């Protein structure tokens, strides 16, 4: 999606990418069920095996950040479309042309 020429599809692609990264953390973070990280009645310290709570914290932070990024990107493409009257990424290349700035 990121490689499509339409700027709207670009933003959708970016949003999907950030979700993919979150899922990756989720999967690599040793997921298991039925093993909450809670210290039992007769124990002093947390004994393994337990589900790791940190990936959730990481993903939560990352979701908030990607939400902000996506919101910004949507406003940005709206402004870009208004200014340039163009939604084709291949035509947004005036800054690459020599002597054009």
């Amino acid at each position, binding site marked *: 999606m*990121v490689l499509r020429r339409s*700027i709207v599809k*670009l933003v959708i692609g*970016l949003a999907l*990418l*950030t979700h*993919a*990264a*979150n899922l*990756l*953390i989720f*999967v*690599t*973070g*040793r997921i298991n069920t039925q093993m909450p990280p809670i210290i039992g009645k007769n124990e002093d310290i947390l004994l393994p095996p337990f589900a*790791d709570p*940190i*990936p959730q914290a*990481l993903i939560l*932070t*990352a979701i908030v*950040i990607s939400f*902000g*990024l996506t919101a*910004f*990107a949507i406003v*940005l*493409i709206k*402004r*870009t479309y208004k*200014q*340039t009257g163009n939604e084709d*990424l291949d035509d*947004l*290349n*005036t*800054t*690459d042309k*020599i*002597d054009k*700035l």
Partner: protein
Amino acid sequence: MIEFLIILPVIIHFFTGAVLIATMKSRDISRTISLASAFLLLVSSLILFAVVWLSGIKVLYVGSWKAPFGISFIADIFSVSMLVMTAVMLILVTIYSFASIDSGREKYGFWVFLQFMIMGVCGSFLTGDIFNLFVWFEVMLMSSFVLIALGNEKFQLEGAVKYVTINVISSVLFLSAVGILYGLTGSLNMADLSGKIKLVENKYLINIAALFFLTSFGIKAAIFPLFFWLPASYPTPPIPVTSIFSALLTKVGVFALIRIFTIVFIHNVPFTHGILLALAGLTMVTGVLGAAAQFEFRRILAFHIVSQIGYLLLGLGLFTLNGLAATVFFFFHIMLAKTNLFFISGIVNRIYGSYDLNRLGGIYKNHPFISIMFMISAGSLAGIPPFPGFWAKLFVIKAAFESHYYFIGAVAILVSILTLYSMLKIWNEAFWKNIEHPDTKEEKLTNKFGWYVPVIIVSVLMILISVFPEHVYIISQKASEQILNSAVYIKNVIGK
């Protein structure tokens, strides 16, 4: 109590940023607060520098959670000297913006986002936790997105779309790498990771994580072959924004590379650092060749950012004491020289209304002073003695020869000559050439103080470095000793 100083740079900019939101509509108050906070940063980072210089690495455990469980902030000589440079750059850009930024941008939050961006930069320099590093990167990037798009000009928005897209992709890669690394080791603290990585059996996955980091930071630092976004987006915003970006953002990328590849990924030096060395050479050459084809003041300079990043990487790729010392020295030189060149291009544009070398000419005849300032920075960038760039390049090339990497050393010399070529091109076309100006009218500078003072300060600093290179080199060498001696760093952080 002294540990509190470590977090102070971040706190200063967080609060000034917050206060500036309230005073956004009042130009004078915003300007005063911004300048005051820049000076506060300078003072606090100088004190921190003195403390770290005298008593070694300082660590702050946020919320008193000992490493590796909580987030730790770490000040060593390298990160603190980068902080001092950040403070100097912020002061200069703030003064320069007084004269050159337009009131529309000021009203819509230029100062606010400048402060938040510096907060992100300071945080990335200080943190000792890779996920925290990711968060600081995002703080810095979000603010830089706003700064690059602020003003709603057509070129700016086009540049911003590219800049945002490439940076989001780079962040995703970074996050994935953090995820993989956490899955393998169960830790996020850099010092802790360094020990745990040696215990991981799946070496291939570690290499993959290392390359994810390399790609992600490589995009931010604009190394070959990931630099193409930089010349497309950096020249589009106004000059103060371009100059603070070129002084800090790509450098933070290189800084993160140095941190990660000297503390975490040192399990397989021939593999990872061999790649870094090859990329360094390619970055230098492509950057300088790209610049040779350009005829626009800012675009030439933007391509030179890419080329100089190659030199910074070269020292890391060598992975020797002298190599890293040269890199640190190069940081000092490049931040000053590059910013000054952008400042001067802004002044030239203000007087003649153009960045196009074909339309400029005869500046030397009318404005000899500004031409001499240009000569100092351009000479430094190209590596002409006695300017700081000469010393920086000398140390880099010497370190390469000492490690018997003759080819890459020769490439560095060749690139240096090509840099001289494109600096001379600007000089000949814009400053030396005699042309009549039928289509460009000359304008008087309205606020001479704001335009000239930053340029003069940078030039004086550069002359100081060229007269006393040995003092700066001693700082660089100490910093490099600390970087290479990661055992001391780990001991300080984890405490065993």
